[in-house]
């Protein structure tokens, strides 16, 4: 069966993924809304920056984040002046890194969902006395619900699968930064193949079930619109 340290790593991973997903829901929604609605030329560059983690090697992202959050980086200086110490090699450092790392997995499905809603429902809501903010909550959110579910699942699952960024930012501290993917790496390094197998199987099943859930609940093609 799974060892205590395995369970600890799984619990840490789940906590990291859940917190990251929640934070990204709050940050990603306005970014996606802005990207879906804006007509300024900024849309291109900002969209590209958001998508960067898709193609960047995690070690590159981790390296820059390490510099920024380290004692001499701008973020590090800020956190130190606030009396928070520095973020690398802490759980919250991992959270910050994961937010950057998983940003496109939240923003892109949401942006698609918002763009698919189109202009018309917003206009209809306006003619029915709904202010823009009211429209967002009473029309856009319900209509974009499938997009939110997809974005949430993808973000959670992607954060669970993170490895390179964790190594760069978090290292390998049990209970603080040693997530499941790092734990497997440790098992393999120590030639504990049986332990590695068990944890790897858990990760595989989890990933499959998440994707299965997403594909099964994908909405049927609309008919007779």
């Amino acid at each position, binding site marked *: 069966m799974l060892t205590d340290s395995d369970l600890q790593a799984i619990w840490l991973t789940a906590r990291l993924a859940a917190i990251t997903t929640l934070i990204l829901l709050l940050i990603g929604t306005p970014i996606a809304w802005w990207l879906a609605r804006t007509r300024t030329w900024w849309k291109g560059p900002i969209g590209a920056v958001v998508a960067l983690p898709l193609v960047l090697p995690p070690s590159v992202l981790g390296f820059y984040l390490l510099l920024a959050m380290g004692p001499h980086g701008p973020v590090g200086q800020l956190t130190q002046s606030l009396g928070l110490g520095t973020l690398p090699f802490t759980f919250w450092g991992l959270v910050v890194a994961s937010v950057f790392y998983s940003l496109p997995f939240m923003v892109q499905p949401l942006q698609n969902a918002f763009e698919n809603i189109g202009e018309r429902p917003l206009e209809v809501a*306006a*003619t*029915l006395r709904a202010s823009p903010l009211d429209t967002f909550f009473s029309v856009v959110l*319900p*209509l974009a619900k499938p997009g939110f579910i997809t974005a949430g699942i993808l973000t959670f699952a992607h954060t669970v699968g993170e490895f390179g960024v964790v190594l760069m930012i978090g290292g390998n501290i049990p209970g603080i930064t040693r997530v499941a993917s790092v734990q497997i790496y440790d098992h393999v390094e120590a030639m504990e193949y049986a332990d590695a197998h068990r944890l790897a199987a858990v990760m595989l099943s989890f990933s499959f079930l998440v994707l299965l859930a997403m594909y099964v609940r994908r909405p049927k093609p*609309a008919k007779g619109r």
Partner: protein
Amino acid sequence: MHPTSQDASDARIEARFRLDWPGFTLDVDLKLPSRGVTALFGHSGSGKTTLLRCIAGLERPSCGRLAFKGKIWQDEKTWLPTYQRPIGYVFQETSLFTHLNVLGNLRFGLQRSATAQRVGLEQAIELLGIDHLLARKPDTLSGGERQRVGIARALAVGPEILLMDEPLAALDLKRKQEILPYLERLHDELDIPLLYVSHSPDEVARLADHIVVMDEGRVVADGPLGETLARLDLPIRLGEDVGVVLDAMVGVIDSEWHLARVDFAGGSLWTRDRGVAPGKRVRVRVLARDVSLAVTDPGASSIQNILDGRVESIGDDEHPGLLLVRVQVGSSLLLARLTRRSAAQLGIAPGLPVSVQIKSVALME
């Protein structure tokens, strides 16, 4: 249609817009009546929908002024966003919220409108005959049903003006026939002004009291429906739809021959009895192609409707071989389409007394 004596100065809609898009300019300056149905009529691309959207605040023209019954909705300093304008809007294609059922759609505006009343919702449901649909989801409704719900939803907010953007255009003929009676009820029962965008002469003839004819972003004619349609210089091609609309009343039903006599200012016309009760006000549409003229008594003819008239004026028609002749019959005007040759042979000229033979008329309740 609605004989009231309201103060005309502030009971009006004044709209002046200028909007420049690549390849299209809207440039209008209009005063619209605040009662009855006003049709914004024109071919596609004439700017009628854009004008309606400007009035709703869905487009923001670079410069413009809009006053509704003395209240400013837009000028240099003022911009009232759409959600603060007391309008009801019906979109061309179905626009129901798919995440709500029919009742949820109807209540959406109701909950947010200060002027809406419970009674208004029930009235709207009754008026559009959608009582049995309330629990359904929009994607289970037919196109006609959806549009009826859309109209009811716009009415349920208790608007001070109803704006309709070709509410029938996306429907097939059968669905159109299904909805038209409801629109006619709106015309009869609502006491708010209704702006109705359409490119269909038939819909306009049935529903409108006032018409604004648009072409290439400009207003090329506007006025009361009957007068405007009888103009010879209407700068828009109507083809086979050139004709006039007369306000009339059903006089007598001849049950032996299944005919009804309708009386208008200028005479009477016999038409098929469609079960409209005597005394009821109706509209009669007479197309120019169905009217012919004779200078001597034509004698026995299969044509039942022959009236005495006098040529009032003559105008060009779209085809060089054709003419449009405006004939005064009593205090009404009719249009007749003639070939130039027959007009020349008959010696048609202003002032000439003629027999007006009307082959067919369309009765509209």
